[in-house]
């Protein structure tokens, strides 16, 4: 595709439920990043992949959060036992390599009720 695509655009879930957020990076981009953006704040880094492996997951807030990229392209961010504090916009970005510009998707707005 022309840009980074994230699905769904919006997700409303009940507290305690499990959710999956999907990111389709720009074709050919080897690096993929996940960020979380709370209202009125800048994006906060969660995790990034170089190829299939998670190169740095230091931003994941706790073990309820997990992300995979099994074939080095599409990535899924998984959140278990969601809490109201998980409500935010989850952004995905991709880049050709680690030292190149990252392009962001439009984000998934997650609301936990």
């Amino acid at each position, binding site marked *: 595709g022309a840009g*980074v695509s994230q699905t769904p655009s919006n997700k409303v879930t009940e507290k305690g439920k499990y959710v999956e957020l999907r990111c389709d990076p720009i074709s050919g981009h080897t*690096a993929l*990043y996940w960020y979380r953006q709370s209202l*009125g*704040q*800048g*994006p*906060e*880094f969660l995790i*990034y992949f170089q190829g299939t492996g998670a*190169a*740095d997951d230091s931003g994941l807030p706790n073990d309820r959060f997990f992300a995979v990229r099994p074939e080095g392209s599409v990535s899924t961010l998984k959140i278990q036992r969601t809490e109201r504090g998980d409500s935010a916009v989850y*952004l995905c*970005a*991709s*880049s050709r390599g*680690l*030292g*190149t*510009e*990252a*392009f*962001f*998707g*439009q*984000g998934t707005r997650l609301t936990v009720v």
Partner: protein
Amino acid sequence: GESVGLHLPTLSVQEGDNSIINCAYSNSASDYFIWYKQESGKGPQFIIDIRSNMDKRQGQRVTVLLNKTVKHLSLQIAATQPGDSAVYFCAEPHAGGTSYGKLTFGQGTILTVHP
């Protein structure tokens, strides 16, 4: 620790005026900075970047200035248009990091352009 922050959370200008958005950083070892524009409901969009070996860099209607002495950078937008209304973030790679996608973002400045 490192931090990237902004002086002014909001800026309101008239169409055609020049806009200046400021950002302060605390890590004197920072060597690369990026400005992003984020419109409502969209992800951040790259505007311009600058490396620490430069004081100034110009793009189309935008200029970034870097003052390493006081650890300050600014984004200047010439002839601001209503389409420039957005939140603007400065960002830098995490300290010691080699990835330009693993970034620390500032709080952001809301720019509103009145016709």
